């Protein structure tokens, strides 16, 4: 049957046409496409590797950041502690100085009071001395007859002096 016998004319056409197609596609068709497929596969592989690397780097950076934050916090608390101590020192020193100044003022006041007191005592002494002299003068100046009269006289003088001093 002719269906099963290859026709020589069509066979030749097929040989030529297929060889031509094979040549054209080998030269201008497939290399571009398969080259791109290979390159894309390589590109994707590289991309995956890069992404992995980037992930690792990011993790490292995060670790570094956490460490730095921790250090900064430590430093901050140290500085705060120092500041608090310094403040207390300053307050204590100021208090000490104030107390010393107050003491000084008090001492001076006390000294002044003392001198004024001494002045007052001296004044009183002088007054008492003057009084005694005056009284003695009056006693001596009068000639007294009786003891009773003497005593009355002295009392009256004293009363007078008392009234005078008031």
């Amino acid at each position: 049957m002719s269906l099963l016998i290859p026709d020589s004319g069509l066979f030749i056409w097929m040989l030529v046409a297929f060889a031509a197609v094979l040549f054209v596609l080998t030269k201008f068709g497939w290399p571009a496409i398969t080259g791109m497929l290979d390159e894309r596969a390589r590109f994707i592989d590289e991309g995956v590797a890069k992404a992995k690397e980037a992930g690792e780097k990011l993790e490292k950076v995060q670790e570094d950041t956490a460490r730095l934050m921790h250090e900064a916090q430590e430093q901050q608390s140290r500085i705060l502690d120092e500041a608090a101590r310094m403040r207390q020192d300053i307050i204590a020193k100021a208090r000490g100085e104030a107390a010393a100044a107050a003491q000084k003022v008090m001492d001076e006041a006390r000294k002044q009071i003392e001198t004024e007191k001494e002045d007052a005592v001296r004044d009183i002494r002088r007054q008492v001395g003057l009084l005694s002299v005056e009284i003695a003068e009056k006693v001596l100046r009068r000639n007294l007859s009786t003891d009773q009269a003497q005593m009355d006289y002295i009392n009256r003088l004293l009363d007078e002096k008392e009234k005078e001093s008031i």
Partner: protein
Amino acid sequence: MKGQQDLDVTAMIFDHVGDSYYWHLTDVGGTPVAIPLPVLVFSEHTGWHCFSSARFHHGHEACEGLAIAPKESPNAGKIIEVATGERPALDCSVTKNAAGLLIASVLLCLMIVGAARWYKKRDVTAAAPKGFIGSVEMLVNFVYEDIIKANIPTHTARYTPYLLTVFFFIFLTNLLGLIPGSANLTGNIAVTVTLALFTFVITNIFGTKAYWQEVFWNPELPAWLRPLMAVIEFISLFTKPFSLTIRLFANILAGHCALIGVLSVIFITATTMPGAGNGMMSVVSVLLAVFLDFLELLVAFIQAFVFTMLSSIYIGLSQAHHEHE
């Protein structure tokens, strides 16, 4: 209408699946409407002849001492020399199949070279293509990764262009063959035998030493088995391309025959059971034909896949290396 009632279904099927010197489109009122094709014949008696097949007047007239053989002749439908009644020495006429082959070849080149241009203009960072080029890439990727690389681990680049061409050529011609009125290329044994020959030559021309050793004196077998296996392996060198030829040709031819046969039911029942019976059978046969068409779409892909797969397996085997190498 009377003449069409004694319908010869067998002749109709063979008309459709066979080759012709015309591209037959349809019949109008009993006269065929066909595109005439160039006849190119070399006769040892009268030399080269080149003329349009329209001059045969659909086989009714001879031209330049050549004529189309009548149905009763052993060369039915072929050009014969009127003087001797024999086939001429060489008949390179552009028949319907040859014309279809040229169209398919040009189409395939345009498609793939066109797709390749897209890749040449872009670098690897470009997004994957969409649409037609995307579907070409999907198929190329499938054949390249799952068939070629999987079966041919060494010298892959040497065989990739051939195997991709074979896959796309068969797939495209299978699909074109499904268009009504088109040439039935992969259902023609001359086409499939050429494809199988390419695989045969490419397989054996680059065969490694280890491959030929396995064919003729397999060191892995006991000594007394080796001569017997050598004979079997030698025969299988030739049965491999033979099976490739027949598998593709028979699958596609059978599909076309079944499709035309199912559609012929409409015309057969028109004479045997006119009226409602014919109408019912027509509906059934059209539904069945639609189903068969979808099946043929699947077969078109599967046969292209199988041919490429087997070719790459044969090539992969011819690249065998011994363990110690």
